[in-house]
Structures are given as structure tokens and as C-alpha cells.
């Protein structure tokens, strides 16, 4: 009975792995093949080892349609994703800290106002946001890419829940030890919620990395093209064939940084999940 359930569990797991990994393998194999062959539907599941150089050449030289090399797009994407993730964490950390640990007038009003903005994602307020950015002369700038995405109700709510779960005695012990608000934040609160912050960072980094609509609108300068924009620009415009192999190579390259972030932070997740305080 035992071995049978084990076998079943492994079969289900294996199926899951295949389901998730197959598309990735397909674009990896496709990247090394002939654009015309892919357009005809003759995509082989075996990568052509002689054409592995496409990743390097795409990275160095760009995709042909866009003068910006792909490494530059990756840098822009990484900068944007990091800026958004770190900025969101800093802002929501401070606002959640204020809402949970301080008593001030209109505290709950402030909290609910933040809460309500959950219903107003960038897509909904895109035109007014664009107008504001234009007034600030932030169009076609790195700040324009990141600033409007910094405020985050989701992260604030999540951190509020984390902070609420911190025992009152811990806060009081720190007060008796003479820790002021800044000291408490830096020496106690952030280390205690480090695992949650790491998890949040991963989610926000991937969110920032995958941004499409806002960068498309606010940054028309090719020097500010993100990798996601770069991939989409290659899609068949009607005059030229879509260079599928180049696109797939870029897609493979675009996957790598988020994977690195997840793998690097994974240690912290596991720590956060297994080290339960009594």
C-alpha cells in the first residue's frame, strides 16, 4: 500500500515536472533552429548544438530589429524590477510599521485608504498616471518606469499581517531595553520578519520583471526598452517574418534573472517555513 501511494505520488509529480518544463525546453530547443523551419511548424525537440552561439550573439548584438543589444534590455529590466521590488518593500514596510505600532489620528482612515487602492491597479489609472508623469517630465526616464509602480497596497497588507502576529511582549521587551522606533525597526522588526520580506521580494521582483503595459507607454526611447518589450517588438509586423529563433533565445535569456532571484531567496523561504518560533 505504502509503495503504491509512493509510486502514485511520484507519477503525479513527474507529470507536473513535464507539464512545467516542456514549454521551457521547447523554446530552448527552438532558439537553436532555423526561423523558417519554426514558421513552417517543423520545430525539433532536439537543440542544434552547433547553433548554441545564438544566445551569445543575441545578448551581445541585439535582435536585428532593435539597435539596443539584449544585455542592455536585461539591465533595464533588472534595474526596473529591483527598483520596484526594493521601493515597494521600503514604502510598505514603513507604512505597515506606522499602522501597526503607532497610535495617531486617522490611523485607520490611512489604512483603509491604502486598502482601497487595491482596486486601482496601474491598468485602471493608466491615463491619469501618464498625465502626472508627463507633468513631472518623467516620460522616457528610468524614474518614470519605476516610480508609479512603487506604492503597493498588497505588500502593505501582507506586512501588516506579519507585524500583527509579532507578540506584544517582544515590543515591550524592546521598549524596556530602551530601543526607540528606529532601533526597533532595524534591530528587531526587520530581522524577525526577514523570511516574509524575502518572499515578498521574490514576488515583487517577478511582478516588476514582467511589467509590459506601463513601460510600453512611458518609455518610447529604445535605450529604455525592457526585455519584455524587446521580445514583443519582434512579433510579425506584416512586412517581415517573425524571427522565432531570436525571440525564443531572448525568452530563454529573459527567464534566467527571475530564476536566479528565486533560487537565491529559496534558502530564506525554507528557513521561514521550517523555523517556527514557539
Amino acid at each position, binding site marked *: 500500500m505504502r509503495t503504491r501511494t509512493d509510486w502514485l505520488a511520484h507519477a503525479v509529480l513527474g507529470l507536473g515536472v513535464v507539464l512545467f518544463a516542456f514549454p521551457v525546453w521547447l523554446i530552448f530547443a527552438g532558439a537553436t533552429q532555423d526561423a523558417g523551419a519554426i514558421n513552417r511548424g517543423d520545430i525539433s525537440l532536439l537543440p542544434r548544438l552547433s547553433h548554441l552561439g545564438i544566445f551569445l550573439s543575441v545578448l551581445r548584438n541585439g535582435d536585428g530589429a532593435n539597435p539596443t543589444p539584449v544585455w542592455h534590455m536585461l539591465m533595464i529590466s533588472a534595474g526596473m524590477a529591483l527598483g520596484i521590488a526594493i521601493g515597494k518593500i521600503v514604502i510598505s514596510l514603513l507604512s505597515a510599521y506606522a499602522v501597526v505600532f503607532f497610535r495617531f489620528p486617522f490611523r485607520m482612515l490611512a489604512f483603509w485608504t491604502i486598502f482601497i487602492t487595491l482596486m486601482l491597479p496601474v491598468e485602471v489609472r493608466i491615463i491619469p498616471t501618464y498625465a502626472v508623469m508627463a507633468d513631472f517630465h518623467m516620460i522616457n526616464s528610468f524614474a518614470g518606469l519605476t516610480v508609479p509602480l512603487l506604492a503597493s497596497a498588497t505588500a502593505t497588507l501582507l506586512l501588516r499581517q506579519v507585524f500583527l502576529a509579532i*507578540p506584544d*511582549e*517582544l515590543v*515591550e*521587551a*524592546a*521598549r*524596556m*531595553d*530602551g*530601543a526607540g522606533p528606529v*532601533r526597533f525597526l532595524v*534591530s*528587531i522588526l526587520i*530581522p*524577525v520578519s*526577514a523570511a516574509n520580506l524575502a518572499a515578498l521580494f521574490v514576488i515583487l521582483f517577478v511582478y516588476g520583471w514582467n511589467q509590459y503595459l506601463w513601460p510600453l507607454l512611458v518609455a518610447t526611447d529604445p535605450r529604455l526598452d525592457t526585455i519584455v518589450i524587446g521580445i514583443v517588438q519582434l512579433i510579425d509586423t506584416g512586412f517581415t517574418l517573425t524571427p522565432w529563433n531570436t525571440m525564443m533565445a531572448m525568452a530563454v535569456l529573459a527567464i534566467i534573472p527571475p530564476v536566479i532571484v528565486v533560487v537565491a531567496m529559496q534558502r530564506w523561504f525554507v528557513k521561514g517555513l521550517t*523555523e517556527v*518560533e*514557539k
Partner: protein
Amino acid sequence: MASLELRGLAKSFGAQVVLDGIDLTVADGEMLVIVGASGCGKSTLLRLVAGLEQPSRGEVILDGRDITDRDPAERDIAMVFQNYALYPHMSVFQNMAFGLKIRGLPQADIRRRVGAAAEMLGLGDLLTRKPRALSGGQRQRVAMGRAIVREPKLFLFDEPLSNLDAKLRVQMRADIRRLQRRFAITSLYVTHDQVEAMTLGDRLVVMREGRAAQVATPMEVFARPADTYVAGFIGAPAMNFLPARLTAGGHGAALAAGPAILFADGPRPGPEGRGLTIGIRPEHVQLDPAGMAFAVDLVEPLGSETLVHGRLADGEGLVVKIAGQAPPGEALRVALPPAQLHVFDAGNGTRLEPETATVGPLAGLAVTG
């Protein structure tokens, strides 16, 4: 170390009065234990002294200085919390050193103080461990150490042993008392456990509904409880209470169950027939073939002694503690030795002391312990 004085300390949360004017003095080096049922305001009292809450009225005076409006960190008071409240991400050393570091003590001093405290508490080998790698008793000692290294004027203990198992609790209780005596640490200790209260305290404060029902030494509280609440709270199993009336010109009590008992220590004030509550501890009730009828309905053997629950002739419940085993049978006879009786007013439950020859008949009314 220093002495602590509380003057008319009161705290209300909205309309709810939690503390109703507490006056207390803790002498230098004294361990004062505050004991009471949950919700009696004992923890609030401690938090007011710590500065974690602001009192609605009254003053906290430590070492002659009014510290009522000071921040907790500026009061020179350390507190040991019920759930230890150790910083989970810091090692034992860092936990103990945190407060000193904030105070800006030199590294060498910090290391010396933490080292000395760790040695004293037997934590020397554990300094690099994180709290989660410690047992409950070890965590408790780290929490103590964190308080000790600060060398405060006053120690506050908020039910520090209630998260430990029974065996460890007994051991830690003795350890705390030993440390406190050795260093003459002025301490306020809050607990709901009467055994802790009796064994730890130089004096006890029995609290009830935001007031101090009695402040006295443990043996005084046990021997002469100020009212029926204190009498019922201290001592296990709880004291028996029997309704009675004053009789024989104040020299005796007529129990509702039948016989009149003459007081051993002198007459109580008041008119003939005044309502009384007679208290007697289960261990003081005696089996006596000439005594009152006692119908047994439950026998609880505890090994070296036996608790016998039953009823008197008027249906009033009584618990009797007998050394060894209970005699067989459902019908026993018990006597209440006059020297062991506690006499309380039936109305407000205050203790009635005997009138002495030199004191006027009404003076006894004012004596409530």
C-alpha cells in the same frame, strides 16, 4: 537597588476601572508578590510600574523620585515576561547585551556583565545559541539574565513560571528566590499561583477587582485572612465557609447546622444574632464521634492524605482533609476546633477580630487585618 512606592495608582480603560487606587510600598531588597485571579488588575499594576501603560491617576515613586511620566527605558526597571519575549533572531549573548548596547556601554563592560550573569545562571555554554535551540527553563533563565545585566533598581516578574512544566517550575521558583535573596533585588512578582505567592514573597498583596484586599506576610495572610475572598483564595483546598449567627453575648457562634461554638480568643462585637460567616480550613476539621453529623458524598485519596467532601445537617457543603485514609462509611461526625475558626461578617465578608478587654466594643469593627 531601591525602594518603590505607589500612591493612589489607578487605571481605567474607558468606563472600565481596572485599578482602583493602589497604595503600596516595596522596601529595599524586598520581594513583594501580587497574587489574584485573572482580571483582578495585577498585570496592569505591573505594566503601570514598568511604564508600558500610563496611569489614570496616582504616582510611581522609585528611590524617592517620581517616575510616573518617564519612558520605560528611563525608569531603571527590568521586566521578565511570561512568554520570555526573547528576541528570536539573536543569540543568548546578543539577547542579554541588547539593552546594554543601546545604552552605549563599552564592549568590554558588556562582555563582563553578560559573562558574569551567564555564569550565575548556568548559561555559560549556551551564549552562542539562538532561543529556539533552548529548553523552556533555559529560555526563562536567559530572560532573567537579560534583566540582571542591566543592574536595575527594580525587577518586575510577570508570571514568569507559568509556561514551565510543574517540576521545572518548582526548581526555577527556588532559583529565583535564591538569586533575589543573594543580591537583595527589590522585586514585584505577579502570579495567579498561590503556592508561588506563598513561597516567594516576603509579603503578599492579594488583589481583587482592582483593589488590594490584603497586604501582609504570607503566613499572616494564611493565618489571619482579611476577608472571605482572601481566605478562600489562599490555601488548597479552599477554606470552608459556614453561615452562623452571633450568640452568647458575642462569645460564640450558632452554626446553621446546629451546635453553637464558643470562640477561643474572645468575643466578637455586634448584637446578638448578627450574621456571621465561619471559616475553617479543611485540614483543621476533626473527626469526632461527639461532633456534628457529616454525610459523605465523595472521597478523594491523595496518598498521604484524603479529601472527604460531604454535607452537614443543614445541607451546607464541607471539605475535610484527613491524614492517611478516610474511615469507611457514608456517615461521619466532625467537630470544628474553636481555636482554628475564622470569623467574618456575613454581609461584607471582612474579618472580625476578637475584642480585647482594653478596647471598646465597637473598635473591633474597624480591624480588618
